[in-house]
């Protein structure tokens, strides 16, 4: 744990440090050049003038006192995270649930009807979804469902959960649904012919029961891994969607942090994400054993 966190924070700090470009310039606005004196003042204020190790050491010592640093507007990173995290989590979870339900559902459907219409429809749908970048889909969805049809708010979180989150979540889910669906399809196909499925049929179990308990359950390992991963990536990878739908989540903060080369912001957020990932992956690993008792993890 500790080494992972230390290593991560350092790597990310170093990466931010290594970002080409001048943070001070980005502070001053797009079409201005900053006078050297003002630049020097800004640098020393944000410790940008010291070497990487000194900066990092400074950050760490702050961390030890529970200080996560400040952004370039002198706002504490902890309050940025406190403000952005709930939004991001809501968006990610909403998306994730949509992905999980739609993905596995469609996947099972495609597998059961392999080679026939539902399978081909899922395939076709996936293909189309994959062929349009999701930011394009998002803009289109915003115009169509938000503006023309008015089903969802176009942007922002004023309408609260779930209304404000549904449309962005749907757009984001589009990315993962094909993957989950195809993965499910493959896994289900793998187990569909297993002998124990025949046993279940011989018991007189219904279709759904056979599918869910006897086919899907043993196929869950890759699906669960995937879903665990997507939950994590959703938490960290919503920058574009948050921007397009104007959600005040962590994505925007990260993006700004990166643009402004603000180590503490980026590191603070990333560390949170790494920890989340550690946790999710730990849970997933435990789930492996629950799902398939034959697996042993040492």
């Amino acid at each position: 744990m500790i080494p992972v966190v230390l290593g991560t924070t350092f790597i990310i700090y170093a990466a931010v440090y290594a970002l080409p470009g001048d943070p001070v310039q980005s502070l001053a606005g797009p079409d201005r050049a900053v006078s050297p004196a003002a630049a020097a003042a800004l640098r020393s204020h944000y410790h940008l003038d010291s070497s990487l190790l000194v900066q990092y050491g400074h950050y760490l010592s702050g961390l030890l006192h529970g200080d996560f640093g400040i952004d370039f507007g002198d706002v504490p990173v902890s309050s940025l995270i406190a403000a952005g995290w709930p939004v991001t989590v809501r968006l990610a979870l909403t998306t994730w649930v949509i992905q999980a339900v739609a993905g596995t559902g469609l996947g099972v459907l495609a597998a059961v009807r392999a080679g026939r219409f539902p399978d081909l429809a899922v395939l076709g749908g996936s293909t189309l979804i994959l062929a349009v970048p999701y930011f394009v889909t998002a803009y289109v969805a915003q115009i169509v469902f938000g503006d023309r049809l008015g089903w969802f708010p176009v942007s922002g979180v004023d309408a609260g959960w779930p209304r404000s989150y549904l449309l962005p979540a749907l757009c984001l889910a589009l990315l993962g649904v094909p993957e989950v669906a195809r993965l499910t399809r493959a896994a289900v196909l793998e187990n569909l012919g297993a002998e124990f499925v025949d046993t279940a049929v011989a018991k007189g179990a219904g279709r759904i029961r056979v599918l869910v308990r006897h086919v899907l359950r043993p196929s869950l390992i890759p699906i669960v891994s995937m879903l665990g991963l997507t939950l994590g990536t959703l938490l960290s990878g919503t920058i574009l969607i948050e921007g397009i739908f104007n959600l005040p989540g962590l994505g925007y903060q990260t993006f700004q942090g990166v643009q402004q080369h603000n180590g503490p912001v980026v590191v603070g957020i990333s560390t949170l994400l790494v920890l989340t990932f550690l946790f999710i992956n730990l849970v997933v690993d435990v789930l492996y054993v629950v799902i398939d008792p034959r697996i042993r993890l040492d």
Partner: protein
Amino acid sequence: ALTGCGADGVGRAAPGPDGGSFSIGVPAWYVAHLTPGRAGKSSVADAIWTPLTRIDDRGRAVGAVAQSVRSSDLRHWTIELRHGWTFHNGEPVTARSFADAWNAAAYGPNAMPYGYLFSDIQGYTDLNPLKGKPKRTTLSGVRAVDAHTLKVTLSRPLSVFPYTLTSTVFAPMPKTAFKDLAGFDRLPIGNGPYEVAAPGIKPGVQQLTLRRYDGYAGPEGSAARITVKSYQDDATAFTSFQSGAVDVALASGSRLAQARRTDADDVALSTAGGVVYLGFPLWDKRFRDRRVRQAFSLAINRHAVTRSLLQGLASPAAGIAPDTVTGGGQRACADCRYDPTRARRLLSEAGGWHGRLTLWTQADPAMQTVLEAVLNQLRTNLGITSITLEAQPTDQLYPNLSAHKADGPFLLYMGASYPALYAQAQQLFTTGSGTNTTGYRSGTFTSLLDRAAAARTTPRITALTRRAERTALDDLPLAPLYHPVTGAVHGPDLTGVHLDFLGDVQLARISVR
């Protein structure tokens, strides 16, 4: 349906006996900071702050809080303040308020990004030493003589000083501000037509409510309440406007064109007081020959770019400022035409083109699209086949340019910080100016501009600056391409939506029907 839901932030303009309320969508950076030295110029800052001077409708600097701004030598200025101005908390606006605010903004350790605008004032360098802690905390050139008199000493004569004072960066701050600058930044107490309603800006909250300040000494704002919503993405702001979530939104590019086509009445346009130009890296020996630069400039079909690519939302440029700017709009550039034959000839006279050509610009989709068009035209008209495009975020691009690392022409936008040709010329061409990206230096230009700075009447300043501009464009360190048009879209129940010379909506003038 006009339901009164301004308070919870959803939607529509609502008229009322008190002036009603409306909402506006703005880029996120408008409301990232609200302290004068941090905020930069934006319509929100304009609503909260009123500096000493303002630009009137004819582009002149006239007094706002200031009664008069006078100088005999253009270095020593005396500013008389009007009476009766108060901050939103009732504290009177005095000369001290200005002096303190300026000192705070210019003081290095406060790390105000716009502090550099004070660099013309005497003592600025003491507050911003290149190394170590500053020994002083106040600008030696600023002195509050009495409550309503401010004396300012500049480090050089500057006839356009009253213009520079129009920036909200030069706004005053009340005493409470200095106790907690960070807190003040989020919930400032200003002296403008609108006051910021609590809780101000907060991480995670994307809207800001402005309430009309009834004790305002200037022309009163017409709406009683304005909801400012911040957007991370302009396209989203526009779509939100279309869906009715906000009443006013800024727009540009194809969205603006679309809005103009469909609903011209509710679109406010303004030619920005700036120029998009193709700068040449004068440090690169391939661009030392003027004929090469001429060839490049002549090879670009400005009309095609503005008409087809930009859908008319720009005007071809032959100078560095449009006619909306005092002194702008003259055909200063002889080579800003489209003449591919001559271009080709000039290039071959200069020895032809050798090697790879890289065109630079900032990482901005609109600029990149234009640069691509430029690239295609250079390829077609000059026969240069090996061209690549390099787009960098500004924080990389500007340092690269000032370090002379860019090895090809660059497409950039330069906006005047106040609407005078002088400002443009000064920023673009003076030796040592941070925005002189081409590294241009010319004795003739410098002396002309210095004379302009020392001139006493506006026509004189303009004439001299125009000569300077022509001199510079004869040398062609950069080829002006076009003056972009920016715009705002608004709902049918709003009137008085105007854009100022920098393309900002003036909130105080918008009224709700």
